[in-house]
C-alpha cells in the first residue's frame, strides 16, 4: 500500500472516530437535558400541588368560622358544599381558576362512616390532562354546623406540571 493511501486511511479513521464522539456527546447531552426537564416538571408540579393544598385548607370560603385560632385544620362542610356548587355553576370564574390553577381539589370524609352522596365533595375539577401529576393529602376536621359535629377527613389536591 502506498504511503499516501495509509495516511488517507488514518485521516478517515480519525474523522469517523470524531464523528462518533460528537454523536455520543449529543446523545448524552440530550439524555441529561431530558432528565433535567422531567425533574423540573415534577418539582414544579409538586410545588404547585403543595401551594394549592395549603391555600385550599386556609381559604376563607372553606374555613370554619367561630372556631379557636389554633383549629387551623377545620373545613366547614356547608361552605364546601356551597363552593362546589358555585364553582360548578360558574366554571369560568377567573378568581377560582387563579386560586386553584388547573387542579382537582376533593374533600373526603373518613370518620365516622362517610356520607355516600357527599364523599367526596369535588370542589374543583382539573380540565386538562397533564403528563405529570402530583397528589397531596391534607388531613382536616370537617365541621357540620347544622349538627355541630366534627368529622375526620382529608383534602386531596391533584395538580399537573
Amino acid at each position, binding site marked *: 500500500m502506498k504511503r499516501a493511501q495509509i495516511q488517507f486511511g488514518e485521516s478517515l479513521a480519525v474523522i469517523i472516530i470524531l464523528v462518533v464522539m460528537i454523536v*455520543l*456527546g449529543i446523545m448524552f447531552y440530550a439524555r441529561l437535558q431530558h432528565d433535567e426537564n422531567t425533574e423540573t416538571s415534577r418539582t414544579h408540579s409538586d410545588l404547585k400541588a403543595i401551594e394549592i393544598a395549603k391555600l385550599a385548607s386556609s381559604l376563607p370560603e372553606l374555613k370554619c368560622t367561630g372556631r379557636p385560632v389554633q383549629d387551623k385544620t377545620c373545613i366547614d362542610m356547608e361552605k364546601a358544599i356551597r363552593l362546589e356548587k358555585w364553582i360548578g355553576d360558574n366554571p369560568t370564574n377567573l378568581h377560582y381558576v387563579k386560586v386553584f390553577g388547573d387542579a382537582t381539589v376533593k374533600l373526603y370524609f373518613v*370518620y365516622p362512616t362517610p356520607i355516600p352522596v357527599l364523599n367526596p365533595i369535588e370542589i374543583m375539577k382539573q380540565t386538562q390532562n397533564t403528563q405529570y401529576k402530583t397528589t397531596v393529602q391534607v388531613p382536616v376536621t370537617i365541621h357540620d354546623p347544622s349538627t355541630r359535629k366534627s368529622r375526620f377527613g382529608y383534602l386531596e389536591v391533584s395538580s399537573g406540571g
Partner: protein
Amino acid sequence: MEIMGLAVIVILVSIGLFYMIAFTKEPQPEPVKEYTASELATNTIVAMLATDIDDCGTTLEKVIVDKATYQNLPCLRSDDPINKSISLMLENSLQKWGKDYKLTIDYPDTATNTVDIAVPTTPLCGDMRERETGTQPIPLYPVPGTVMVSLSICT
C-alpha cells in the same frame, strides 16, 4: 497507527467523563416528601383530636381526657371508642396512602386510667432521621398532668 491508539484513549476518557457527569448529578430535593415530613404528622393528630367520636358525642381529645380522669362518659364503660375510632381514621388515611406510622399516647402518673393503644401500626422505619413525629399535649386540668399524643410517620 499511533493516532488510532490516541483516539481510543480519548474515546475512553470521554465516555468516562460522560458517565461521571451522569452519575454524580446532585439529587434534587423532593418537595412533596419534605412537605409531608413537616406537616402530615401534626395535621393528622390535630384533626383526629378535634373529631367527634360517634358513640361518645364529644371529641377524641375530651374522650382521652375523660378516660384518664373521671370516666364520666357512658361510652367508656362498654366499648373501647378510643382505639376503635383511631383505627378507622388511620387505616383510611395514612395506611391508604402507603405511609408507615406509629401512634402512641403517653399518660402522666396522675392519670387514674390509661389506654393501651392497640391500633395496628405498620412497621416503622428504623432510622430516626427518616421519621417525622407530631406531638400534641392534652392537659388533664383540673387534674395535674398532661397526656402526650404522638404520631410518627416514615418519610
